[in-house]
Protein backbone atom coordinates (compact mmCIF):
# COMPACT_ATOMS: atom_id res chain seq x y z
CA UNK A 1 0.00 0.00 0.00
CA UNK A 2 1.45 3.33 -1.01
CA UNK A 3 -0.05 6.57 0.16
CA UNK A 4 0.44 9.40 -2.27
CA UNK A 5 1.07 12.98 -1.33
CA UNK A 6 -2.54 13.87 -1.89
CA UNK A 7 -3.69 11.28 0.59
CA UNK A 8 -5.18 8.96 -2.05
CA UNK A 9 -3.98 5.41 -1.59
CA UNK A 10 -2.82 3.22 -4.45
CA UNK A 11 -2.25 -0.51 -4.40
CA UNK A 12 1.20 -0.47 -5.96
CA UNK A 13 3.94 1.75 -7.32
CA UNK A 14 3.23 0.34 -10.77
CA UNK A 15 -0.28 1.65 -10.65
CA UNK A 16 0.99 5.05 -9.67
CA UNK A 17 3.25 5.04 -12.71
CA UNK A 18 0.31 4.07 -14.92
CA UNK A 19 -1.70 6.93 -13.47
CA UNK A 20 0.63 9.33 -15.23
CA UNK A 21 -0.49 8.06 -18.65
CA UNK A 22 -4.02 9.07 -17.94
CA UNK A 23 -5.21 12.38 -19.20
CA UNK A 24 -6.23 15.00 -16.76
CA UNK A 25 -9.62 15.26 -18.48
CA UNK A 26 -10.80 11.92 -17.22
CA UNK A 27 -9.98 12.82 -13.65
CA UNK A 28 -11.78 16.09 -13.89
CA UNK A 29 -14.88 14.56 -15.42
CA UNK A 30 -15.07 11.93 -12.69
CA UNK A 31 -14.53 14.53 -10.05
CA UNK A 32 -17.29 16.72 -11.46
CA UNK A 33 -19.72 13.80 -11.59
CA UNK A 34 -19.03 12.76 -8.02
CA UNK A 35 -19.29 16.38 -6.91
CA UNK A 36 -22.74 16.74 -8.46
CA UNK A 37 -23.90 13.52 -6.80
CA UNK A 38 -22.52 14.62 -3.46
CA UNK A 39 -24.11 18.07 -3.70
CA UNK A 40 -27.46 16.51 -4.57
CA UNK A 41 -27.25 14.21 -1.59
CA UNK A 42 -26.40 17.14 0.68
CA UNK A 43 -29.38 19.17 -0.51
CA UNK A 44 -31.70 16.23 0.12
CA UNK A 45 -30.18 15.60 3.54
CA UNK A 46 -30.28 19.26 4.62
CA UNK A 47 -33.87 19.90 3.56
CA UNK A 48 -35.29 17.17 5.76
CA UNK A 49 -32.78 17.53 8.57
CA UNK A 50 -34.19 20.09 10.96
CA UNK A 51 -37.77 18.96 11.42
CA UNK A 52 -36.74 15.31 11.66
CA UNK A 53 -34.31 16.01 14.46
CA UNK A 54 -36.85 18.11 16.26
CA UNK A 55 -39.47 15.38 15.95
CA UNK A 56 -37.05 12.78 17.32
CA UNK A 57 -36.20 15.11 20.19
CA UNK A 58 -39.87 15.65 21.04
CA UNK A 59 -40.48 11.90 20.93
CA UNK A 60 -37.51 11.34 23.24
CA UNK A 61 -38.81 13.94 25.68
CA UNK A 62 -42.24 12.32 25.73
CA UNK A 63 -40.80 8.83 26.21
CA UNK A 64 -38.56 10.18 28.95
CA UNK A 65 -41.49 11.84 30.68
CA UNK A 66 -43.51 8.65 30.58
CA UNK A 67 -40.67 6.63 32.06
CA UNK A 68 -39.96 9.28 34.69
CA UNK A 69 -43.58 9.45 35.83
CA UNK A 70 -44.71 5.84 35.67
CA UNK A 71 -41.57 3.74 35.66
CA UNK A 72 -41.52 0.37 33.97
CA UNK A 73 -41.53 -3.20 35.36
CA UNK A 74 -39.00 -3.17 38.19
CA UNK A 75 -37.88 0.40 37.43
CA UNK A 76 -39.56 2.82 39.84
CA UNK A 77 -40.64 6.23 38.53
CA UNK A 78 -38.04 8.98 38.98
CA UNK A 79 -40.70 11.30 40.41
CA UNK A 80 -40.76 9.31 43.65
CA UNK A 81 -37.42 10.76 44.75
CA UNK A 82 -36.59 13.50 42.26
CA UNK A 83 -39.97 15.24 42.52
CA UNK A 84 -42.83 15.70 40.08
CA UNK A 85 -40.97 18.40 38.16
CA UNK A 86 -37.44 17.16 38.78
CA UNK A 87 -36.91 19.52 41.71
CA UNK A 88 -35.50 16.86 44.05
CA UNK A 89 -36.12 16.51 47.78
CA UNK A 90 -33.83 18.81 49.71
CA UNK A 91 -34.53 17.28 53.13
CA UNK A 92 -33.45 13.83 51.98
CA UNK A 93 -30.57 15.03 49.82
CA UNK A 94 -32.09 13.80 46.56
CA UNK A 95 -30.72 16.06 43.81
CA UNK A 96 -32.78 18.14 41.43
CA UNK A 97 -32.59 17.07 37.80
CA UNK A 98 -34.64 19.80 36.14
CA UNK A 99 -32.60 22.00 33.85
CA UNK A 100 -29.40 20.01 34.15
CA UNK A 101 -27.24 19.50 31.06
CA UNK A 102 -28.47 16.47 29.10
CA UNK A 103 -24.93 15.24 28.49
CA UNK A 104 -24.21 15.41 32.19
CA UNK A 105 -27.29 13.36 33.17
CA UNK A 106 -26.52 10.82 30.48
CA UNK A 107 -22.97 10.34 31.67
CA UNK A 108 -23.97 10.06 35.31
CA UNK A 109 -26.56 7.36 34.59
CA UNK A 110 -24.05 5.38 32.54
CA UNK A 111 -21.44 5.69 35.27
CA UNK A 112 -23.94 4.69 37.96
CA UNK A 113 -24.75 1.57 35.97
CA UNK A 114 -21.12 0.41 36.00
CA UNK A 115 -19.76 -1.99 38.55
CA UNK A 116 -17.10 -0.64 40.86
CA UNK A 117 -14.02 -2.85 40.55
CA UNK A 118 -13.41 -4.95 43.68
CA UNK A 119 -11.21 -3.31 46.28
CA UNK A 120 -7.50 -3.51 45.61
CA UNK A 121 -7.89 -4.23 41.90
CA UNK A 122 -6.36 -1.58 39.68
CA UNK A 123 -6.74 -1.41 35.92
CA UNK A 124 -3.26 -1.08 34.48
CA UNK A 125 -2.83 1.99 32.35
CA UNK A 126 -0.94 1.65 29.11
CA UNK A 127 2.39 3.39 29.49
CA UNK A 128 2.30 6.65 27.61
CA UNK A 129 5.78 7.50 26.41
CA UNK A 130 5.03 10.10 23.79
CA UNK A 131 8.66 10.93 23.23
CA UNK A 132 9.18 7.60 21.48
CA UNK A 133 6.01 7.58 19.38
CA UNK A 134 5.00 11.18 19.15
CA UNK A 135 2.78 10.87 16.08
CA UNK A 136 0.57 8.00 17.13
CA UNK A 137 -1.55 8.68 20.08
CA UNK A 138 -5.17 7.69 19.67
CA UNK A 139 -4.38 4.00 20.18
CA UNK A 140 -1.84 4.38 22.94
CA UNK A 141 -4.18 5.54 25.67
CA UNK A 142 -6.60 3.31 27.50
CA UNK A 143 -9.73 5.18 28.45
CA UNK A 144 -11.12 4.49 31.85
CA UNK A 145 -14.87 4.47 32.28
CA UNK A 146 -16.15 6.88 34.88
CA UNK A 147 -17.22 5.27 38.13
CA UNK A 148 -19.95 6.41 40.47
CA UNK A 149 -21.69 4.38 43.14
CA UNK A 150 -24.92 4.99 44.99
CA UNK A 151 -26.81 2.40 47.04
CA UNK A 152 -30.21 3.51 45.76
CA UNK A 153 -29.44 4.75 42.28
CA UNK A 154 -26.94 2.19 41.00
CA UNK A 155 -29.38 -0.80 40.92
CA UNK A 156 -31.94 1.36 39.10
CA UNK A 157 -29.45 2.67 36.56
CA UNK A 158 -28.38 -0.87 35.73
CA UNK A 159 -31.87 -1.66 34.44
CA UNK A 160 -32.03 1.30 32.05
CA UNK A 161 -31.28 0.81 28.37
CA UNK A 162 -29.16 3.28 26.39
CA UNK A 163 -32.32 4.70 24.83
CA UNK A 164 -33.95 5.09 28.25
CA UNK A 165 -30.95 7.00 29.53
CA UNK A 166 -31.00 9.32 26.54
CA UNK A 167 -34.75 9.91 26.84
CA UNK A 168 -34.56 10.68 30.55
CA UNK A 169 -31.61 13.02 30.06
CA UNK A 170 -33.36 14.96 27.31
CA UNK A 171 -36.58 15.12 29.32
CA UNK A 172 -35.00 16.51 32.47
CA UNK A 173 -32.84 18.94 30.49
CA UNK A 174 -36.04 20.32 28.95
CA UNK A 175 -37.58 21.24 32.32
CA UNK A 176 -37.32 24.76 33.69
CA UNK A 177 -36.41 25.35 37.31
CA UNK A 178 -36.49 28.16 39.84
CA UNK A 179 -34.53 27.65 43.02
CA UNK A 180 -35.97 28.49 46.44
CA UNK A 181 -33.11 29.95 48.53
CA UNK A 182 -32.58 28.25 51.88
CA UNK A 183 -31.77 30.57 54.76
CA UNK A 184 -28.54 29.98 56.65
CA UNK A 185 -26.37 31.50 59.37
CA UNK A 186 -24.59 34.70 58.30
CA UNK A 187 -21.13 33.49 59.23
CA UNK A 188 -21.65 30.22 57.42
CA UNK A 189 -22.70 32.07 54.29
CA UNK A 190 -19.76 34.46 54.53
CA UNK A 191 -17.25 31.64 54.77
CA UNK A 192 -19.01 29.68 52.08
CA UNK A 193 -18.92 32.69 49.81
CA UNK A 194 -15.23 33.24 50.43
CA UNK A 195 -14.49 29.66 49.41
CA UNK A 196 -16.86 29.76 46.44
CA UNK A 197 -15.49 33.00 44.98
CA UNK A 198 -11.82 32.82 45.98
CA UNK A 199 -10.99 29.29 47.09
CA UNK A 200 -7.91 28.97 49.26
CA UNK A 201 -5.14 30.61 47.29
CA UNK A 202 -2.43 29.78 49.82
CA UNK A 203 -3.16 26.06 49.46
CA UNK A 204 -3.68 26.08 45.69
CA UNK A 205 -7.37 25.28 46.04
CA UNK A 206 -9.25 26.98 43.18
CA UNK A 207 -12.57 28.79 43.60
CA UNK A 208 -15.81 26.92 42.82
CA UNK A 209 -16.86 29.66 40.41
CA UNK A 210 -13.83 29.12 38.20
CA UNK A 211 -15.42 25.95 36.79
CA UNK A 212 -19.04 25.90 37.99
CA UNK A 213 -19.73 29.38 36.51
CA UNK A 214 -20.05 32.69 38.43
CA UNK A 215 -23.51 31.98 39.88
CA UNK A 216 -22.90 28.26 40.32
CA UNK A 217 -25.26 27.56 37.45
CA UNK A 218 -22.89 25.01 35.93
CA UNK A 219 -21.17 25.00 32.56
CA UNK A 220 -21.50 22.38 29.85
CA UNK A 221 -21.61 18.65 30.37
CA UNK A 222 -18.50 18.53 32.55
CA UNK A 223 -19.35 21.10 35.20
CA UNK A 224 -22.75 20.55 36.86
CA UNK A 225 -24.65 23.28 38.70
CA UNK A 226 -24.11 23.79 42.44
CA UNK A 227 -26.78 26.44 42.95
CA UNK A 228 -30.24 25.01 43.35
CA UNK A 229 -28.94 21.67 44.61
CA UNK A 230 -29.73 20.43 48.14
CA UNK A 231 -26.84 21.12 50.51
CA UNK A 232 -26.97 17.53 51.79
CA UNK A 233 -26.49 16.25 48.25
CA UNK A 234 -23.40 18.41 47.64
CA UNK A 235 -21.80 17.34 50.92
CA UNK A 236 -22.56 13.69 50.13
CA UNK A 237 -20.95 13.90 46.72
CA UNK A 238 -17.75 15.51 48.05
CA UNK A 239 -17.64 12.76 50.67
CA UNK A 240 -17.95 10.16 47.93
CA UNK A 241 -15.02 11.64 46.05
CA UNK A 242 -12.96 11.54 49.21
CA UNK A 243 -13.97 7.93 49.89
CA UNK A 244 -13.45 6.72 46.32
CA UNK A 245 -17.11 6.00 45.56
CA UNK A 246 -17.19 8.59 42.83
CA UNK A 247 -14.46 9.00 40.24
CA UNK A 248 -15.97 10.25 37.01
CA UNK A 249 -14.89 13.87 36.78
CA UNK A 250 -13.26 15.60 33.85
CA UNK A 251 -9.44 15.21 34.14
CA UNK A 252 -9.84 14.31 37.81
CA UNK A 253 -10.27 18.00 38.59
CA UNK A 254 -12.95 17.56 41.25
CA UNK A 255 -11.02 14.72 42.86
CA UNK A 256 -8.10 17.08 43.41
CA UNK A 257 -10.42 19.73 44.85
CA UNK A 258 -12.42 17.37 47.08
CA UNK A 259 -9.23 15.97 48.61
CA UNK A 260 -8.44 19.41 50.03
CA UNK A 261 -11.83 20.27 51.52
CA UNK A 262 -12.37 20.05 55.27
CA UNK A 263 -15.71 19.05 56.80
CA UNK A 264 -16.43 22.70 57.64
CA UNK A 265 -15.61 23.77 54.08
CA UNK A 266 -18.13 21.31 52.68
CA UNK A 267 -20.92 22.50 54.98
CA UNK A 268 -20.18 26.20 54.43
CA UNK A 269 -20.00 26.05 50.67
CA UNK A 270 -23.03 23.76 50.36
CA UNK A 271 -25.06 26.15 52.52
CA UNK A 272 -23.89 29.07 50.39
CA UNK A 273 -25.02 27.44 47.16
CA UNK A 274 -28.35 26.31 48.65
CA UNK A 275 -28.84 29.98 49.56
CA UNK A 276 -28.38 31.22 45.97
CA UNK A 277 -31.32 32.11 43.80
CA UNK A 278 -31.31 30.63 40.33
CA UNK A 279 -33.61 30.46 37.33
CA UNK A 280 -32.93 27.88 34.67
CA UNK A 281 -34.77 27.77 31.37
CA UNK A 282 -35.25 24.26 30.04
CA UNK A 283 -33.71 23.43 26.67
CA UNK A 284 -36.19 21.91 24.28
Amino acid at each position, binding site marked *: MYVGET*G*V*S*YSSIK*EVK*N*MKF*QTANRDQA*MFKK*SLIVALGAMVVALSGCDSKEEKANQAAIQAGQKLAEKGRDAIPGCVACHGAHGEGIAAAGYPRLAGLNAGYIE*KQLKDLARE*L*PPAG*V*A*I*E*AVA*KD*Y*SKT*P*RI*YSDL*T*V*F*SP*GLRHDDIMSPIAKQLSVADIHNLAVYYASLSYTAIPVAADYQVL*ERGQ*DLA*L*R*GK*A*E*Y*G*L*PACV*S*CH*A*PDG*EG*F*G*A*DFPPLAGQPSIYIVNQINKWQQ*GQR*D*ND*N*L*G*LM*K*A*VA*DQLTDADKLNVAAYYANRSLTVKGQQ
Partner: protein
Amino acid sequence: MKRLSFLLLLGLSQLASAVDTALTASPVRIDSYDARASIPTGLTREKAIRQIPAISPGEYFVPPEVGDIPTSKYGDMVKLGRNIFIDTQHYAKRYVGNGLNCSNCHLQEGRKAYAGPLWAAYPMYPAFRNKTRDVVTFEERVQDCFRFSMNGIAPTLDSPEIKAITSYAHWLSTGAPFNKELPGRGFARLGKPRDPTPINGEKLYKESCASCHGIEGAGQKFTNRDGYMFPPLWGKDSFNHGAGMSSVKSCAQFSKANMPLGKGWTLTDMEAWDICTYIWLQDRPWDPRFGWFFNIFAPPTGGN
Protein backbone atom coordinates in the same frame (compact mmCIF):
# COMPACT_ATOMS: atom_id res chain seq x y z
CA MET B 1 -9.14 -5.32 -23.94
CA LYS B 2 -6.33 -5.36 -21.45
CA ARG B 3 -6.17 -1.63 -21.49
CA LEU B 4 -9.94 -1.35 -21.03
CA SER B 5 -9.99 -3.68 -18.04
CA PHE B 6 -7.11 -1.79 -16.51
CA LEU B 7 -8.97 1.49 -16.82
CA LEU B 8 -12.03 -0.12 -15.24
CA LEU B 9 -9.88 -1.33 -12.37
CA LEU B 10 -8.39 2.10 -12.01
CA GLY B 11 -11.82 3.67 -11.90
CA LEU B 12 -12.95 1.24 -9.24
CA SER B 13 -9.89 1.84 -7.10
CA GLN B 14 -10.42 5.56 -7.42
CA LEU B 15 -14.02 5.19 -6.36
CA ALA B 16 -12.96 3.11 -3.39
CA SER B 17 -10.40 5.68 -2.38
CA ALA B 18 -13.00 8.43 -2.71
CA VAL B 19 -15.26 6.51 -0.30
CA ASP B 20 -12.28 6.04 1.97
CA THR B 21 -11.53 9.73 2.18
CA ALA B 22 -15.19 10.59 2.64
CA LEU B 23 -15.35 8.33 5.69
CA THR B 24 -12.17 9.61 7.26
CA ALA B 25 -12.93 13.24 6.49
CA SER B 26 -15.51 13.60 9.28
CA PRO B 27 -13.61 14.48 12.47
CA VAL B 28 -13.70 11.87 15.19
CA ARG B 29 -14.44 13.54 18.48
CA ILE B 30 -13.66 11.84 21.72
CA ASP B 31 -15.78 12.85 24.69
CA SER B 32 -13.64 15.11 26.80
CA TYR B 33 -14.22 13.19 30.00
CA ASP B 34 -12.99 9.99 28.41
CA ALA B 35 -9.60 11.37 27.53
CA ARG B 36 -7.64 10.48 30.59
CA ALA B 37 -5.48 7.69 31.89
CA SER B 38 -7.19 4.70 33.38
CA ILE B 39 -6.58 3.84 36.95
CA PRO B 40 -9.76 3.63 38.97
CA THR B 41 -8.47 5.09 42.21
CA GLY B 42 -7.33 8.67 41.88
CA LEU B 43 -4.72 8.21 44.55
CA THR B 44 -2.47 6.10 42.36
CA ARG B 45 -3.11 7.92 39.12
CA GLU B 46 0.20 9.15 37.79
CA LYS B 47 -1.26 12.56 37.04
CA ALA B 48 -2.35 12.93 40.67
CA ILE B 49 1.18 12.76 42.00
CA ARG B 50 2.30 16.25 42.92
CA GLN B 51 5.74 17.62 43.34
CA ILE B 52 5.24 20.65 45.54
CA PRO B 53 8.25 22.97 45.82
CA ALA B 54 10.34 22.96 48.98
CA ILE B 55 8.35 25.78 50.59
CA SER B 56 5.23 24.23 52.09
CA PRO B 57 1.95 25.84 51.00
CA GLY B 58 1.18 27.14 54.48
CA GLU B 59 4.23 29.37 54.35
CA TYR B 60 3.04 31.61 51.54
CA PHE B 61 2.03 35.12 52.43
CA VAL B 62 -1.68 35.33 53.19
CA PRO B 63 -3.27 38.61 52.05
CA PRO B 64 -6.18 40.15 54.01
CA GLU B 65 -9.75 38.97 53.39
CA VAL B 66 -12.14 40.85 51.14
CA GLY B 67 -14.55 41.41 54.03
CA ASP B 68 -11.83 43.42 55.77
CA ILE B 69 -11.56 46.14 53.13
CA PRO B 70 -11.90 49.37 55.17
CA THR B 71 -14.97 51.54 54.76
CA SER B 72 -13.29 54.75 53.65
CA LYS B 73 -12.36 56.58 50.48
CA TYR B 74 -9.30 54.35 50.30
CA GLY B 75 -11.48 51.27 50.75
CA ASP B 76 -13.74 52.40 47.93
CA MET B 77 -10.74 52.68 45.64
CA VAL B 78 -9.61 49.21 46.68
CA LYS B 79 -13.06 47.82 45.90
CA LEU B 80 -13.06 49.50 42.49
CA GLY B 81 -9.60 48.05 41.87
CA ARG B 82 -10.82 44.59 42.78
CA ASN B 83 -13.81 44.98 40.46
CA ILE B 84 -11.56 46.05 37.60
CA PHE B 85 -9.23 43.17 38.37
CA ILE B 86 -11.82 40.39 38.30
CA ASP B 87 -14.16 41.90 35.69
CA THR B 88 -11.94 43.96 33.44
CA GLN B 89 -14.35 43.42 30.56
CA HIS B 90 -16.93 45.54 32.35
CA TYR B 91 -15.03 48.00 34.55
CA ALA B 92 -12.17 48.87 32.19
CA LYS B 93 -13.83 48.04 28.91
CA ARG B 94 -12.44 51.02 27.02
CA TYR B 95 -8.84 49.95 27.63
CA VAL B 96 -9.24 46.28 26.73
CA GLY B 97 -8.87 44.89 23.22
CA ASN B 98 -9.55 41.20 23.81
CA GLY B 99 -11.75 38.88 25.86
CA LEU B 100 -9.58 38.53 28.97
CA ASN B 101 -9.74 39.69 32.58
CA CYS B 102 -6.74 40.37 34.85
CA SER B 103 -7.74 37.41 37.01
CA ASN B 104 -7.50 34.99 34.06
CA CYS B 105 -3.75 34.86 34.68
CA HIS B 106 -3.42 36.43 38.15
CA LEU B 107 -5.56 33.62 39.52
CA GLN B 108 -7.94 33.88 42.45
CA GLU B 109 -8.16 37.67 42.40
CA GLY B 110 -4.39 38.08 42.34
CA ARG B 111 -3.85 35.99 45.47
CA LYS B 112 -2.52 32.70 44.10
CA ALA B 113 1.19 32.06 44.64
CA TYR B 114 3.15 31.38 41.43
CA ALA B 115 0.38 33.01 39.38
CA GLY B 116 1.82 36.52 39.52
CA PRO B 117 0.35 37.40 42.94
CA LEU B 118 -0.06 41.12 43.53
CA TRP B 119 1.09 40.88 47.15
CA ALA B 120 4.49 39.69 45.98
CA ALA B 121 4.77 42.13 43.08
CA TYR B 122 3.70 45.43 44.60
CA PRO B 123 6.41 45.74 47.30
CA MET B 124 9.13 45.04 44.69
CA TYR B 125 8.51 48.18 42.58
CA PRO B 126 10.08 50.41 41.25
CA ALA B 127 12.23 47.75 39.59
CA PHE B 128 14.43 47.28 36.56
CA ARG B 129 12.74 45.46 33.67
CA ASN B 130 14.70 43.67 31.03
CA LYS B 131 11.83 44.10 28.57
CA THR B 132 12.00 47.89 28.56
CA ARG B 133 15.61 48.18 29.73
CA ASP B 134 14.52 50.72 32.26
CA VAL B 135 13.42 51.14 35.86
CA VAL B 136 9.61 51.19 35.95
CA THR B 137 7.10 52.00 38.66
CA PHE B 138 4.20 49.67 39.51
CA GLU B 139 1.82 51.95 37.65
CA GLU B 140 3.91 51.74 34.49
CA ARG B 141 4.05 48.00 34.87
CA VAL B 142 0.23 47.85 34.98
CA GLN B 143 0.12 49.99 31.83
CA ASP B 144 2.14 47.31 30.04
CA CYS B 145 -0.41 44.66 31.10
CA PHE B 146 -3.12 46.63 29.32
CA ARG B 147 -0.97 47.18 26.25
CA PHE B 148 0.23 43.61 25.79
CA SER B 149 -1.71 41.05 27.83
CA MET B 150 -5.05 42.80 27.33
CA ASN B 151 -4.10 43.78 23.75
CA GLY B 152 -5.55 47.22 24.41
CA ILE B 153 -4.64 50.82 25.19
CA ALA B 154 -2.65 51.78 28.27
CA PRO B 155 -4.65 53.98 30.66
CA THR B 156 -2.78 57.18 31.52
CA LEU B 157 -0.84 57.21 34.78
CA ASP B 158 -3.36 59.56 36.41
CA SER B 159 -6.42 57.57 35.29
CA PRO B 160 -8.80 56.17 37.95
CA GLU B 161 -8.22 52.64 36.58
CA ILE B 162 -4.49 52.69 37.27
CA LYS B 163 -5.08 54.36 40.63
CA ALA B 164 -7.67 51.72 41.59
CA ILE B 165 -5.56 48.73 40.58
CA THR B 166 -2.57 50.17 42.42
CA SER B 167 -4.74 50.67 45.52
CA TYR B 168 -5.95 47.08 45.31
CA ALA B 169 -2.37 45.78 45.02
CA HIS B 170 -1.34 48.04 47.88
CA TRP B 171 -4.14 46.69 50.07
CA LEU B 172 -3.39 43.05 49.15
CA SER B 173 0.22 43.61 50.26
CA THR B 174 -0.87 44.71 53.75
CA GLY B 175 1.69 43.25 56.14
CA ALA B 176 4.04 42.01 53.42
CA PRO B 177 7.73 42.87 53.85
CA PHE B 178 8.86 45.79 51.72
CA ASN B 179 11.27 45.22 48.82
CA LYS B 180 11.90 41.61 49.79
CA GLU B 181 11.41 38.68 47.42
CA LEU B 182 8.60 36.49 48.81
CA PRO B 183 8.11 32.78 48.11
CA GLY B 184 5.49 32.35 45.40
CA ARG B 185 6.48 35.56 43.59
CA GLY B 186 5.90 35.60 39.84
CA PHE B 187 5.89 32.14 38.32
CA ALA B 188 7.43 28.76 39.17
CA ARG B 189 11.06 28.01 38.38
CA LEU B 190 11.52 25.30 35.77
CA GLY B 191 14.24 22.98 34.57
CA LYS B 192 14.59 22.27 30.86
CA PRO B 193 15.81 18.68 30.34
CA ARG B 194 15.61 18.85 26.53
CA ASP B 195 14.44 21.11 23.73
CA PRO B 196 10.63 21.29 23.73
CA THR B 197 8.61 19.74 20.90
CA PRO B 198 5.23 21.07 19.74
CA ILE B 199 4.28 17.62 18.46
CA ASN B 200 4.24 16.26 21.98
CA GLY B 201 2.70 19.55 23.05
CA GLU B 202 -0.24 19.17 20.70
CA LYS B 203 -0.98 15.74 22.09
CA LEU B 204 -0.77 16.97 25.67
CA TYR B 205 -2.82 20.05 24.87
CA LYS B 206 -5.64 17.97 23.43
CA GLU B 207 -5.55 15.62 26.40
CA SER B 208 -5.43 17.99 29.32
CA CYS B 209 -6.18 21.53 28.13
CA ALA B 210 -8.68 21.27 25.29
CA SER B 211 -11.68 20.24 27.37
CA CYS B 212 -11.83 23.76 28.82
CA HIS B 213 -9.83 26.00 26.45
CA GLY B 214 -11.16 24.25 23.33
CA ILE B 215 -9.42 22.33 20.56
CA GLU B 216 -9.03 25.60 18.66
CA GLY B 217 -7.73 27.41 21.74
CA ALA B 218 -10.57 29.89 21.49
CA GLY B 219 -11.79 29.34 25.05
CA GLN B 220 -15.47 28.89 25.82
CA LYS B 221 -18.03 31.67 25.98
CA PHE B 222 -20.97 31.81 28.35
CA THR B 223 -24.31 30.87 26.93
CA ASN B 224 -26.32 32.99 29.37
CA ARG B 225 -24.16 36.15 29.58
CA ASP B 226 -21.33 38.05 27.90
CA GLY B 227 -17.70 37.05 28.12
CA TYR B 228 -15.63 33.96 28.50
CA MET B 229 -16.04 31.16 31.03
CA PHE B 230 -12.66 29.71 30.01
CA PRO B 231 -10.19 32.22 28.53
CA PRO B 232 -8.92 31.95 24.94
CA LEU B 233 -5.26 30.96 24.65
CA TRP B 234 -4.77 32.17 21.10
CA GLY B 235 -6.75 33.87 18.37
CA LYS B 236 -8.13 37.41 18.19
CA ASP B 237 -9.54 37.47 21.72
CA SER B 238 -6.30 36.44 23.39
CA PHE B 239 -3.14 38.29 24.53
CA ASN B 240 -0.83 39.58 21.80
CA HIS B 241 2.70 38.59 20.80
CA GLY B 242 4.26 41.17 23.08
CA ALA B 243 2.63 39.78 26.25
CA GLY B 244 4.66 37.97 28.87
CA MET B 245 2.43 34.92 28.55
CA SER B 246 3.31 34.82 24.86
CA SER B 247 6.85 33.79 25.74
CA VAL B 248 7.16 30.04 25.97
CA LYS B 249 9.12 30.26 29.19
CA SER B 250 6.60 32.34 31.16
CA CYS B 251 3.73 30.26 29.85
CA ALA B 252 5.46 27.05 30.91
CA GLN B 253 6.29 28.45 34.34
CA PHE B 254 2.67 29.51 34.83
CA SER B 255 1.22 26.23 33.59
CA LYS B 256 3.52 24.13 35.73
CA ALA B 257 2.21 25.62 38.98
CA ASN B 258 -1.42 26.24 38.04
CA MET B 259 -2.72 24.06 35.22
CA PRO B 260 -4.97 22.10 34.92
CA LEU B 261 -6.78 24.35 37.38
CA GLY B 262 -6.60 22.87 40.88
CA LYS B 263 -4.03 20.30 39.78
CA GLY B 264 -0.92 22.44 39.79
CA TRP B 265 2.49 20.72 39.92
CA THR B 266 1.14 17.61 38.15
CA LEU B 267 2.65 18.45 34.76
CA THR B 268 6.32 17.63 34.45
CA ASP B 269 8.65 20.49 33.51
CA MET B 270 9.05 19.07 30.03
CA GLU B 271 5.30 18.68 29.52
CA ALA B 272 4.80 22.34 30.43
CA TRP B 273 7.49 23.38 27.93
CA ASP B 274 5.97 21.21 25.19
CA ILE B 275 2.42 22.46 25.66
CA CYS B 276 3.51 26.09 25.66
CA THR B 277 5.61 25.61 22.54
CA TYR B 278 2.50 24.34 20.81
CA ILE B 279 0.50 27.32 22.05
CA TRP B 280 3.27 29.73 20.97
CA LEU B 281 3.10 28.44 17.39
CA GLN B 282 -0.54 29.51 17.05
CA ASP B 283 -1.85 32.75 15.64
CA ARG B 284 -2.52 35.70 17.92
CA PRO B 285 -2.71 39.52 17.70
CA TRP B 286 0.40 41.41 16.67
CA ASP B 287 3.00 42.96 18.91
CA PRO B 288 1.98 46.63 19.16
CA ARG B 289 5.63 47.74 19.43
CA PHE B 290 6.28 46.83 15.81
CA GLY B 291 4.69 47.83 12.51
CA TRP B 292 2.92 45.48 10.16
CA PHE B 293 6.08 44.74 8.15
CA PHE B 294 8.04 43.54 11.14
CA ASN B 295 5.05 41.64 12.51
CA ILE B 296 4.61 39.70 9.29
CA PHE B 297 8.19 39.11 8.20
CA ALA B 298 10.09 38.88 11.47
CA PRO B 299 9.59 36.14 14.01
CA PRO B 300 7.61 37.14 17.09
CA THR B 301 9.45 37.56 20.36
CA GLY B 302 9.63 35.04 23.16
CA GLY B 303 10.54 31.95 21.19
CA ASN B 304 12.48 30.24 23.93
